[in-house]
């Protein structure tokens, strides 16, 4: 009986100490700067995440397998993942899936719907520049361009292809995710805005006719960004990828492309035929 109580008290003390220790540890360590120190590629072994063994003379010896211990409070900011040694060596991207231009393709309706849902969740209306769905730390466009110029696939994720020409300020139009320190702040808004949904398909003059392009081509000049190539959208691919001149058959919309819009098609007056 008494032993049970003593054990309980002892355990309570241990837990309390652990909790106090945790918070004291958090409070008494300053900020871990995200500045240049940790941002660049490590070039020598003296970077904060380097791993060292100290020999008898006090000189640091590098040991590639050792990772320096850090405090709890540093964990959220600490660079996890590969060691400095690994990161210091240039890597090539994993081999990209090959794309057979001449293979006939049968897009699946389920894929198309799934792709459509993902796309819709990332833009306020069809035609709006999509928001950036992943964390971004770099503000240079080169970082965006590295993956999004031709698209890439890695670790089950896909970087989509830029559908427009290179423009010099990506975040001017593409809204970034919340800054890391504020990512848990509730950013919901109450709105009744309903955006233009993505079109299901273009119009066909008759069954079998090539459908018209149901969206604006402005900022979507590169059809293959979505409708083909190895990094396009599942279910939205062209069934005939070997035909590479899309507008040869698919007519764009003058209204949506903001071409000179005429309310009626100007024509010469009808022929004046005199009946005998």
């Amino acid at each position, binding site marked *: 009986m008494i032993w049970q109580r003593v054990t309980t008290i002892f355990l309570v003390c241990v837990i309390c100490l652990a909790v106090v220790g945790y918070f004291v540890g958090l409070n008494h360590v300053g900020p871990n700067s995200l500045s240049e120190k940790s941002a660049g590629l490590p070039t020598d072994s003296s970077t904060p995440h380097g791993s060292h063994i100290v020999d008898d003379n006090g000189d640091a010896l590098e040991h590639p397998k050792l990772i320096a211990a850090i405090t709890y409070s540093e964990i959220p900011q600490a660079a996890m993942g590969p060691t400095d040694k690994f990161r210091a060596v240039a890597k090539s991207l994993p081999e990209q899936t090959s794309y057979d231009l001449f293979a006939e393709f049968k897009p699946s309706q389920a894929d198309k719907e799934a792709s459509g*849902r*993902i*796309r*819709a*969740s*990332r833009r306020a209306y069809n035609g709006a520049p999509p928001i950036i*769905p992943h964390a971004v730390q770099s503000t240079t466009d080169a970082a965006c361009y590295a993956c999004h110029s031709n698209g890439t696939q890695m670790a089950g994720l896909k970087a989509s292809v830029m559908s427009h020409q290179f423009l010099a300020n990506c975040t001017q139009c593409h809204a970034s995710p919340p800054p890391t320190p504020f990512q848990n702040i509730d950013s919901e808004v109450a709105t009744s805005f309903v955006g233009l949904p993505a079109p299901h398909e273009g119009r066909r003059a008759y069954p079998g006719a090539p459908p018209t392009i149901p969206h604006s081509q402005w900022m979507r000049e590169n059809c293959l960004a979505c409708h083909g190539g190895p990094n396009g959208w599942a279910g939205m691919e062209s069934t005939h990828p070997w035909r590479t001149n899309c507008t040869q058959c698919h007519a764009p919309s003058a209204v949506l492309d903001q071409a000179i819009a005429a309310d009626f098609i100007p024509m010469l007056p009808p022929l004046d035929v005199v009946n005998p």
Partner: protein
Amino acid sequence: MPISGLVVVFETSETLDDLAIERLASHPAIEVGQRQLDRVAVVVDSVSNEQDIEIWEWMRRLPGVSDIKIAFVGFDDDNKQGDVERGDTNQNAAKQDGLGEHCGTI
């Protein structure tokens, strides 16, 4: 034996009347909670995944119901390894993937 916390959203606050609440409450596996304008919180405690899907479909077909939102899902299966619990944070993640609603839980 899944347990889910759901929000049943009605078309308007008028369609969410006492009759609608009674209908929901009449199901033995459903427990009705707080109610606000056009929505009401429910907990579904079902014996199997199959029953869970049945209840989901049943609720969707109730008159006036426009949407069902998932707030919480707990799989509590003795035979399988451990529990998977989904709370608000997971829901946000799911939403970012654009898979918002039926994220395979029911």
